[in-house]
């Protein structure tokens, strides 16, 4: 690649061109012996209907049960929606959590809560997303890509580094087939290095005088951008390097190709990737036309998610890669006059796959209308603590907020990680 040759020839290295040598350097966290785990979250923006995906109620009355039929899976006794036929054959790797029980039924507030483990209090602390925590806990300092990537369009509510700072901010990739734009400098290597060094001088002197956190964040972002320009690993963004047949298996949708990009990023060492789907009028926020929309979206998910799980399995990566299927809440049992379902947070479902968990099980149970949880309720903190435990993150550890107060990774006062997964 021309660009990389240019970088190599230039000898442009961060050591020489580092902008923020003045920043306090965080000691790199000592890595564990075993290969670190990774996580791919498939985020269903808008809140998918649990009744029409992973918690069907065929015996409920017609205004509740809806149009879809359950089908058998590779695990005897477990049934899911008929619109996940391919994933049904992979269920031995996955666990369905049917007892999600959360508080927020507003998209933004719920997305924030599920991403960060904390409720969004106006004017309160900006809490980091789990991906940013993973970036801090699992990311390697010398790794030239951001350790948290968010693929696909969306409001991306709650997917911010908050007080962990610009270093752990996710890299947003709006369109997976397009990757990252503007990776090549518009001048030759020598000039780029020269002007970048000058920029470093300007940054240092501005910060010295004004000490603004925004300036620090700007400098860090510039540095991360230049590290990315230099990185060999950016090849991972080039989906065209995959065989056509592989790309077909994931589905030629934004979500399918996003799943493929997620696999490629995990393979080069990005520890946490989120793939978004479902924004907008055809998305998961099915206040009207729930059934045709959920059917179409399920088909995309079945293709992309199943291809991802198969691919990870075939490459021997499934045991160290946790795949999470989730949205911000479920949907109401009662079907509305417009054939839709409204928001529902008191009972809903998520799915965990791989990552070394004990698969092939359903955890938790809802009532006959999937309206309330009757067995093994899972709170937001239970859920996040469980993911942390799977990933090998000590969720009882605290980070310091900017005003110096310790903030637990997961607020663990009332936490019960889901032990059934670790048996």
């Amino acid at each position: 690649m021309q660009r990389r040759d240019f970088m190599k020839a230039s000898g442009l290295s961060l050591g020489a061109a580092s902008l923020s040598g003045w920043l306090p350097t965080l000691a790199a966290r000592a890595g564990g012996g075993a290969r670190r785990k990774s996580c791919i979250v498939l985020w269903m923006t808008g809140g998918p209907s649990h009744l029409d995906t992973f918690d069907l109620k065929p015996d409920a009355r017609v205004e509740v049960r809806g149009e879809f039929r359950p089908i058998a899976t590779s695990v005897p006794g477990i049934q899911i929606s008929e619109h996940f036929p391919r994933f049904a054959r992979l269920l031995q790797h996955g666990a369905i959590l049917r007892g999600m029980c959360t508080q927020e039924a507003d998209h933004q507030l719920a997305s924030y809560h599920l991403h960060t483990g904390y409720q969004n209090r106006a004017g309160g602390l900006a809490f980091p997303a789990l991906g940013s925590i993973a970036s801090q806990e699992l990311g390697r300092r010398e790794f030239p890509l951001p350790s948290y990537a968010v693929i696909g369009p969306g409001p991306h509510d709650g997917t911010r580094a908050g007080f962990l700072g610009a270093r752990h901010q996710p890299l947003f990739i709006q369109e997976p087939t397009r990757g990252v734009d503007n990776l090549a400098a518009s001048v030759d290597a020598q000039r780029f290095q020269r002007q970048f060094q000058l920029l470093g001088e300007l940054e240092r002197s501005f910060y010295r005088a004004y000490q603004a956190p925004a300036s620090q964040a700007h400098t860090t972002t510039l540095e991360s951008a230049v590290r990315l320009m230099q990185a060999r690993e950016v090849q991972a963004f080039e989906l065209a390097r995959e065989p056509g047949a592989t790309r077909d298996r994931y589905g030629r949708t934004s979500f399918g190709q996003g799943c493929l990009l997620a696999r490629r990023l995990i393979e080069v060492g990005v520890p946490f990737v989120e793939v978004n789907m479902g924004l907008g009028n055809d998305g998961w926020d099915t206040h009207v036309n729930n059934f045709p929309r959920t059917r179409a979206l399920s088909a995309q998910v079945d293709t992309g998610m199943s291809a991802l799980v198969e691919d990870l399995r075939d490459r021997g990566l499934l045991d160290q890669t946790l795949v999470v299927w989730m949205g911000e809440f479920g949907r109401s049992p009662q079907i509305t006059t417009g054939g839709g379902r409204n928001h529902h947070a008191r009972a809903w479902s998520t799915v965990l796959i791989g990552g070394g968990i004990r698969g092939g099980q359903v955890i938790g149970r809802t009532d006959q209308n999937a309206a309330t949880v009757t067995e093994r309720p899972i709170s937001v903190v239970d859920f996040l603590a469980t993911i942390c435990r799977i990933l090998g993150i000590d969720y009882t550890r605290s980070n310091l907020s900017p005003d110096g107060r310790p903030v637990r990774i997961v607020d663990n006062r009332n936490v019960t990680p889901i032990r059934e997964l670790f048996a």
Partner: protein
Amino acid sequence: MKFCNVASVWFLTCVLADAPLARAGGPPSGAKVQRLDAVALARLIDDHIEKRLKVEQIPRSPRADDAEFLRRVYLDIHGVIPTVDQARAFLESTAPDRRARLIDELLGSPRYAAHFADLWHNHLYPATANQRIKPEALVRWLEHGFQTKTWDRLVHDLMTATGPQDQNGAVTYMLKGRFTLSVTEMTDLTSRCFLGVRLNCVQCHDHPCASWKQSDYWGLAAFFTQIQRLKPVVAFTTITETNVDPRKLPESGKLREPRFLGGEVLKAAPGQSLRKALADWMVSRENPFFARAMVNRMWGHFFGRGLVHPVDDMHDGNPPSHPELLEALTEQFKANGFDLKYLCRAICQSETYQRTSKPLAGNAKDDKLFSRMLIKVLTPEQLFDSLVVATGQAGNRGPSGKPINNPRAEFVNSFRGEGDSDPTSYNRGIPQALRLMNSGQFLGPRSEAFVTKQIVPPGTAPEQAVERLYLRVLSRRPSADESKLLLKYFAQPGAERQQLYAEIVWALLNSSEFSLNH
């Protein structure tokens, strides 16, 4: 709201009290308030701020120098950096009242209205552009409004708008794509933007705003039940009103009387416009929310932080940092006929606004009491417009090199963060940094020619050249240290002077200083 947000009624358990009325304070209605002019109000601001700093024993940063003030006041009022000529004219002026004159000049220009139209467009039309159509109609309407109307008139006209979108851009406020906003979306947006109250909290059951009741929410929502879209939709959507039973709320199917927030039930006559009744109530002098909300928002706009923060979350549990000042500003805003320029003038003329953002040892930790100016991040619109002024190019080629239709809208869209974020927090990421550094949208391959033609003519002495580059991009002269640094930069072997100029412009454009309003 990001997208369709229909409240499930059974989640509405958060409760609200009539307390905000009592808490809103101020003199009881009818009491005479002595009207102050902008200069007197500026002094009042300083008195309140300084009194508190004294109590807390926090030193205040000194007055900003002219250049810092110049760039700040341009960005805050016009949303763009000054041109070289504008910068020179101000920096060379020795008139003792040059700051006050500049403030008046800026407020007198149509750019003021354009900037505030941009800002309010973003408040009223949150980042769901993909679901909205023809938002320019609203921007143009707002621009005209800020140019010609007082705040009460502007809001009254917005709230009561009817007609086709092409003839009355204000109806855009009620639209989402070709559809109307839901009643709950209208309720959330209106209360947040114009009353400074967040009501979406009533969807959760443990929000600390323990005071609002479900009935307050639906009472306010009932005012929006007459909004109707005329069918069929041709080129432009038309908003009209129905006279169906106004109390019926489509989302919940509940019947509810329209009730003013924290106030009385409206006994609506048949055929009465509920929106007009609401608008009348909102903009009346007695309304405890309206003026206070705007004063706080304006303060937040200029200082990077509201007296109540966040600016749209005013309730008992979130008290103002300077309650007496907030009440005084509110009363004066009303007494001066909801004149926005009056408010801007008073704020900008205060010493508090004119302080440097450089911290002292004793106030570096203060970000609440206004002992120094807080540093704000340029909005995408400010950044684009300032790039155009600095480089003289509209940048009508996109990141991929292809010409684009509306370069500003495309740029703004790709730099837009989440919703209404804190103006002091930096939300840009790697893609935006890469775009500014590498896209060549503003500083393309012919940058040397551009620098020669527009900034540094051939034969300019190096010291002169440095000054011209700084004035052009950062609207100030370089310090002695900076001159020294750049003169050294010119001394690099094997580089052409014009190339080095272009590199300096690149570095200045990508610097923190350019991206921030300090």
